[in-house]
């Protein structure tokens, strides 16, 4: 058994595709119509055959209150690994991405939290030298 998919529940697939590719830098892997939405996934250009991120519509009535409650408390439900959290924070801020939490050194990791504009907060994390030691 392998893990090949992860999902983010987004409010609009076109908006999400633009954000996850143009801002975060992922690339579209698959896209085909399923019912009234699309099966839409992106991958990291660093791992084109790695785990696919499904941009999943959040149309189920239970999802919106769940997402809003997480966002209210600043909780990122999804986390991506980056080489250098500070550098990525600066790159994305320059692209107009909103961060609810600037990079903070937490010992083994440096973490920051950004708003994906589709109703989610996303954590980015880079490991520090302390993590290897």
């Amino acid at each position, binding site marked *: 058994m392998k893990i090949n998919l992860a999902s983010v529940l987004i409010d609009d697939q076109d908006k999400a595709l633009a954000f996850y590719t143009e801002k975060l830098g992922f690339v579209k892997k698959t896209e085909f119509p399923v019912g009234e939405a699309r099966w839409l996934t992106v991958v990291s250009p660093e791992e084109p055959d790695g785990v696919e991120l499904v941009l999943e519509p959040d149309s189920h009535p239970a999802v919106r209150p769940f997402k*809003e409650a997480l*966002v*209210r*408390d*600043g*909780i*990122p439900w999804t986390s991506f690994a980056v080489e250098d959290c500070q550098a990525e924070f600066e790159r994305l801020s320059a692209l107009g991405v909103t961060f*609810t*939490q*600037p990079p*903070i050194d*937490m*010992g083994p990791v440096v*973490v920051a*939290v950004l708003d994906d504009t589709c109703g989610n*907060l996303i954590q980015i994390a880079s490991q520090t030298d302390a993590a290897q030691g």
Partner: protein
Amino acid sequence: MLSFVTDDVYRAIADPTRRAILDELTERSGQTLFELCTRLAMKHGLGSSRQAISQHLDVLESAGLVRIERAGRYVRIEIETAPLRGIVERWLTSPAPALAPPAPEVAEAAEAPEAPDGRPGDTE
């Protein structure tokens, strides 16, 4: 003039977790609950639940030491240091006459180090 400090303020800062919360908010005001909980866990080794931290924040808010503000879709926690000023003023920065006239024995004690020949503090 002395700022009035309520018992709520002393009670709020009597707890070590609440002092750690104020420490972290001093470093960066306007944190989300997630950021604050992460800092408390990672930097202070506190294993308190998010709910427990929320209850501590309620105590701090009642004492006027934090403001919990909705900023768009996020809730931000801001530190408010104004209530602490009264504590500093009460014991550290108020001129003594404003509190009470010095007792006679205190006044005499202050002059005691003066040497008989009138050179203050000369002990040789």
